[in-house]
């Protein structure tokens, strides 16, 4: 475990060092002003100076992420079970889910705000609109592709349809669901940040990271803007990391993808 961690950190560290030298080198070489590309230490300084607004923004965004994510997971799974449980629901409803997905969220957002007003409810809905699709697509696929041999097995031993759903279809769909979950986890911060920029609240203790970015941008605080970008990035990493950990925890004992991982 430790060795593999060491191995997986080696090349990223090398490339990181190259990237940082290029960063500083090009600033020095081409005399790039700070308002275009601030040096890294200035970004760190700005991040420290603005830590209060950044942290509270990150906190707000994190709350929006969690609510949006869990709403998507819950809604996505319920929808998937409905879609997979009868063929006419799948045929009838799926095209409309596609229509909803194909309509850009940028277009939908003003309508959402019109209905739900500024604030967390709208941000949650916008996050949901961005995140639920990969969960629905993957979970439905998983629920519909249960091994027919296993379905026969449940029939031979007179399993009822609830037992078939709970003990066969849902666990068999887990690896698919986890794939959807990972994609959704990567999209969640995007949804929350975008939602914040269009539906966020301006007052300082309610502003999410998206709103903070707009403030810094308006004030031309470029190093702080970069610091906000790094903060958003780390939220995304944390989110995806937690979901990967969860996926490992659920699947590692029996799924082939984690074979030799113990």
């Amino acid at each position, binding site marked *: 475990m430790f060795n593999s961690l060491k191995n997986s950190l080696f090349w990223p560290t090398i490339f990181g060092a190259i990237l940082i030298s290029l960063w500083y080198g090009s600033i020095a070489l081409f005399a790039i002003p700070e308002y275009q590309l601030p040096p890294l230490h200035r970004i760190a300084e700005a991040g420290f100076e603005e830590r209060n607004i950044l942290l509270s923004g990150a906190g707000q965004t994190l709350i929006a992420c969690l609510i949006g994510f869990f709403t998507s997971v819950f809604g996505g799974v319920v929808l998937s079970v409905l879609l997979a449980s009868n063929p006419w629901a799948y045929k009838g409803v799926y095209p409309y889910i596609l229509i909803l997905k194909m309509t850009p969220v940028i277009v939908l957002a003003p309508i959402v705000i019109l209905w739900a007003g500024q604030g967390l409810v709208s941000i949650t809905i916008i996050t949901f609109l961005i995140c639920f699709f990969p969960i629905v697509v993957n979970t439905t696929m998983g629920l519909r592709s249960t091994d027919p041999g296993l379905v026969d097995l449940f*029939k031979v031993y007179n399993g009822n349809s609830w037992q078939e759903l709970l003990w066969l279809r849902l666990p068999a769909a887990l690896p698919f669901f986890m794939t959807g979950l990972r994609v959704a986890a990567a999209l969640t911060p995007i949804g929350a940040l975008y939602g914040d920029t269009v539906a966020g609240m301006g007052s300082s203790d309610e502003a999410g990271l998206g709103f903070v970015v707009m403030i810094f941008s308006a004030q031309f605080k470029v190093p702080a803007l970069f610091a906000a970008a790094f903060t958003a990035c780390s939220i995304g990493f944390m989110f995806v990391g937690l979901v990967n950990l969860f996926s490992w925890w659920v699947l590692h004992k029996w799924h082939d993808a984690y074979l030799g991982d113990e």
Partner: protein
Amino acid sequence: MENPAKSSPIIPDPFLTLSQVRKSFDGEVDVLKSLDMDISDGDFIGLIGPSGCGKSTVLKLIAGLIPPTSGTIEFSEQNLAEHLAYVFQDATLLPWKTVRDNVALPLQLKGVGEQARHNAANKFIELVGLNHAADLYPRELSGGMKMRVSIARALCVEPRLLLLDEPFGALDEMTRDILNEELLTLREATGWTAMFVTHSVSEAVFLSSKVIVLKPNPGEITECIDIPLDFPRTAATREDPVFVEMVVKVTKALRSVHVKGSD
């Protein structure tokens, strides 16, 4: 429970009767055309025939997985259908359950409590010699071990009728021979009537009290060959002249339908 494995297959009362069973899928060509079959208590029926003769379909019909297009399938006693177990072509184990929980699955579906079903599962896991593997997951097992688990799972319902659909088809010959011998030993210990679908003549002769040869397009019984070899049979049975004679006889029957068949 009495032990039907020990009794001779001459017992006249039918256990399961198929009369004029016909099966066609989507109204297309018949897969099975007018099948008549009497299975007696204690029989070990080997079903053999070229691909497309509907061997597996016969088992699916008996298990109630698919309905016959016409004809009837009758059990001599009402509750016999509930004492039926099925061993599939693949091991069909749930990958997220341990060996023990896989074996206990049929009991779990019947609503048996965890302790009781684990006790039952342990007994059959021991019987197939997988004590050491009870807590492993299927991905950690070899093909032969998976098949053993699958058989233990079938035995866990204490079946009167066991349907086996080419269970050892994917295994190497050595493993298959050993599992054949083990299967007969298990039958001595637990006692059930069997229908066994296979492609292998020697497997059919070794296991069966009666080999039924099917022809394809549409599936029909062409020959019913009694195997006059005493149970219990062991590895030495394969060297018995009667065994060899029977292999030749079944092979000939099979070859004649193969020539008539389209491939």
